């Protein structure tokens, strides 16, 4: 076993070890048990960093590619394997870093929770599943870990299961994801049946050598099917509904889910399978991403819950990433995944810090009815919580796409991609840049709306305000680290310090992806290059516009927001956004309710009709018979229903026993009639 493999396995299994430890030993140790998890994640992180160091030496080369038979029945073999290239190495760092920071943060955030140690166990399980997805070299193995993310998210989102909303949210996340998983599974089956392998590299290779001939419709279908998994996991329209509800989990969990794990898994998977997505499939991907990005951004504008704003922002940003992959801006998509992980984690943890503080303050004044997450109860927090404030501003600038911050680099590349795509295809594809830039302006607006409502202005509730204070070091340290990582130079040094140039170690390590399914990456690259400058101009402008609007609306209060809202709402637009386009309600009306109604009907049919009355059909027949024979009345219908078969036999038995009249001469008559009828019967035939 080479050290590389050993390290990789350690990265995979250390978090699992943490899980096992916390479940079986943790609660006997108590609070101190978190040191075990911290140590495990710390080692994981350092090992991941050691992999990252390698990518500077040999870019574009698989660090590790091992395979072993998991099980086999002769012709049908399933292999397990680890494949680490630069993408995986970067992703590993992202996952373990965020996870590690969340661990640290949680030691304070979750202090005093009755299931404290179990919480750390679940975090371990989650990290394990995510690392598995990253390391997997085959679609089936990826699917395995993909599915494992389900229960880990279920446990974490529903961690405070005493809250009904939390319990439902966990379930909703799991089930919504499963819808996508079905598609992914079918896609995997299609690929396997066609190519006989689950291995991603092998699939790509076979596609390259023309395993799917002809128009490639099958490959397109397979690609879209597999991508359905990403629609679920990465909360793309129309399966995005689970993500905002997932805010019911503890805030650090939200940070983990929304920044580095679960939702990133979908994008990561799309990155992995990019090589064999056909142009048609990519078009589908791009459209889904575009819709998601714009729609989620619009919803985010009107939310008042601090975490919900961030949640929709996540959906929107994920839409960006997916759209990027769809338009062929492979590098940009993955870049955005990485940068987003940092600033979004920072945002969530910062909001958690605010909520934590609010919660304590509310606790002090013995107020249990006020929602600690509602921004309308905040305001003017920046003096009380300076570190939180600064880190949040940094992250907001980053997400809004302001130069010197990471978000600018990656987002700009994506916008360039959409523009390039339009330049190549024209027509309806104008939707993509519109969506991209539109979402960009909205993003800047709602992020700064959030900042201003929370940290600036007057405090809405002075009584709370008095008791607020900055959170402890265990919570602020991760914030500081993450806000530093949201600065652009982190990704560009040592190549350049030019804030408008994204060239750096990252772009060197992560080359433009290959596509064997018909997309000419050179053409795409060329178009990207040309679109770069205009995109930058527009994006800078829209970001500035967005921030400006937020300034006017919420800081300087030049515009009366309430009035504006009312005016807009004349068309129902505000409500549309506030109620998230009514998608949950629509699903409820056209999917959930009819479905459960249907299951009840099925069950009723199965038992009460099919089983209990099946022979009511027999009964009907016998009823007719008895009508003819004049023997019976309808009374028997009222009698208790026995079973179908039984009923009929009993009924016939009852009728037949009438023949046993008790009068001997009837018996003789019966015998004579019998013999005569036999005689006639046999003569007739």
């Amino acid at each position, binding site marked *: 076993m080479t050290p590389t493999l050993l390290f990789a396995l350690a990265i995979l299994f250390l978090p699992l070890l943490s899980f096992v430890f916390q479940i079986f030993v943790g609660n006997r140790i108590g609070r101190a048990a978190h040191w075990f998890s911290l140590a495990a994640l710390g080692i994981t992180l350092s090992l991941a960093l050691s992999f990252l160091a390698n990518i500077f030496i040999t870019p574009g080369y698989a660090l590790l590619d091992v395979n072993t038979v998991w099980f086999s029945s002769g012709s049908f073999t399933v292999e397990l394997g680890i494949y680490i290239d630069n993408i995986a190495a970067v992703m590993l760092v992202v996952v373990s870093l965020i996870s590690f920071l969340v661990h640290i943060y949680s030691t304070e955030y979750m202090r005093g929770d009755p299931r404290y140690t179990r919480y750390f166990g679940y975090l371990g399980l989650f990290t394990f599943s995510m690392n598995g997805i990253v390391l997997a070299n085959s679609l089936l193995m990826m699917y395995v870990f993909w599915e494992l993310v389900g229960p880990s998210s279920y446990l974490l989102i529903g961690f405070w299961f005493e809250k009904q909303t939390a319990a439902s949210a966990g379930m909703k996340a799991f089930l919504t994801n499963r819808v996508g998983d079905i598609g992914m599974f079918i896609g995997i089956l299609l690929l396997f049946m066609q190519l006989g392998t689950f291995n991603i590299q092998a699939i790509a290779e076979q596609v390259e050598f023309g395993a799917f001939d002809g128009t490639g419709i099958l490959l397109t279908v397979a690609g879209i099917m597999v991508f359905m998994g990403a629609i679920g996991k990465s909360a793309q329209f129309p399966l995005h509904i689970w993500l905002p509800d997932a805010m019911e989990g503890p805030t650090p969990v939200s940070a983990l889910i929304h920044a580095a794990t679960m939702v990133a898994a979908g994008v990561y998977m799309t990155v992995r399978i990019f090589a064999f997505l056909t142009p048609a499939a990519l078009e589908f991907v791009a459209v889904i991403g575009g819709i998601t990005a714009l729609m989620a951004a619009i919803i985010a504008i009107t939310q008042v819950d601090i975490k919900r704003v961030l949640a929709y922002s996540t959906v929107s940003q994920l839409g960006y990433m997916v759209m990027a992959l769809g338009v062929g801006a492979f590098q940009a998509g993955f870049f955005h995944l990485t940068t987003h992980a940092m600033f979004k984690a920072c945002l969530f943890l910062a909001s958690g810090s605010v909520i934590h503080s609010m919660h304590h303050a509310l606790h002090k004044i013995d107020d249990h009815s006020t929602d600690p997450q509602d921004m309308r109860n905040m305001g003017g927090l920046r003096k009380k919580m300076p570190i939180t404030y600064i880190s949040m501003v940094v992250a907001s600038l980053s997400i809004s796409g302001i130069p010197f911050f990471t978000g600018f680099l990656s987002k700009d590349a994506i916008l360039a991609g959409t523009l390039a795509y339009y330049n190549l295809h024209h027509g309806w594809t104008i939707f993509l840049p519109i969506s991209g830039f539109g979402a960009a302006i909205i993003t800047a607006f709602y992020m700064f709306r959030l900042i201003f409502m929370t940290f600036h202005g007057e405090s809405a509730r002075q009584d709370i305000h008095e008791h607020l204070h900055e959170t402890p070091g265990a919570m602020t340290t991760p914030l500081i680290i993450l806000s530093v990582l949201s600065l652009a130079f982190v990704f560009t040094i040592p190549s350049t310090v030019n804030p408008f140039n994204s060239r750096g170690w990252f772009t060197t390590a992560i080359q433009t992806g290959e596509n064997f399914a018909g997309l000419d990456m050179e053409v795409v690259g060329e178009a990207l290059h040309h679109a770069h400058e205009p995109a930058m101009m527009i994006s800078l402008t829209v970001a500035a516009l967005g921030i400006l609007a937020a300034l006017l609306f919420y800081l300087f209060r030049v515009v009366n927001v309430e009035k504006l809202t009312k005016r807009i709402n004349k068309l129902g637009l505000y409500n549309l956004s506030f109620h998230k386009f009514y998608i949950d309600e629509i699903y409820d009306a056209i999917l959930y309710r009819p479905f459960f109604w249907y299951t009840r009907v099925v069950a009723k049919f199965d038992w009460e009709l099919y089983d209990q009355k099946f022979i009511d059909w027999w009964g009907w027949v016998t009823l007719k018979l008895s009508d003819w024979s004049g023997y019976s009345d309808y009374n028997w219908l009222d009698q208790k229903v026995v079973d179908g078969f039984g009923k009929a036999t009993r009924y016939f038995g009852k009728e037949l*026993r009438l023949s*046993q*009249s*008790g*009068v*001997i*001469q009837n018996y*003789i*008559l019966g015998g*004579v009639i019998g013999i005569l009828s036999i005689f006639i019967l046999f003569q007739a035939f």
Partner: protein
Amino acid sequence: MDNLQSYLIISTILFSLGLFGVMTRRNGVAVLMGIELILNAASLNFVAFNRFGGMRELDGQVFGIFIIVLAAAEAAVALAIIINLFKNHETVNIDSADQMKG
């Protein structure tokens, strides 16, 4: 008239009458009589077949006697039972014995 056919016709009539009697009479004794008619029809057949069938042996005639003997025994048993019926039901109407049915 002294041919097989006429005997057979008579025996068939006897049989039918017996059958009719068995099926229609209420009185137990009358029913028994019906049965006797059926037996006599058979007996007549045997004798007639024996005579007109050109058989060397007299086994048909013997069978006829057997039938008479057994019919007598049967009648004895049946009458005893009918007497018992009368003891229990105060009637020889066989319809009265319909306690068991269904």
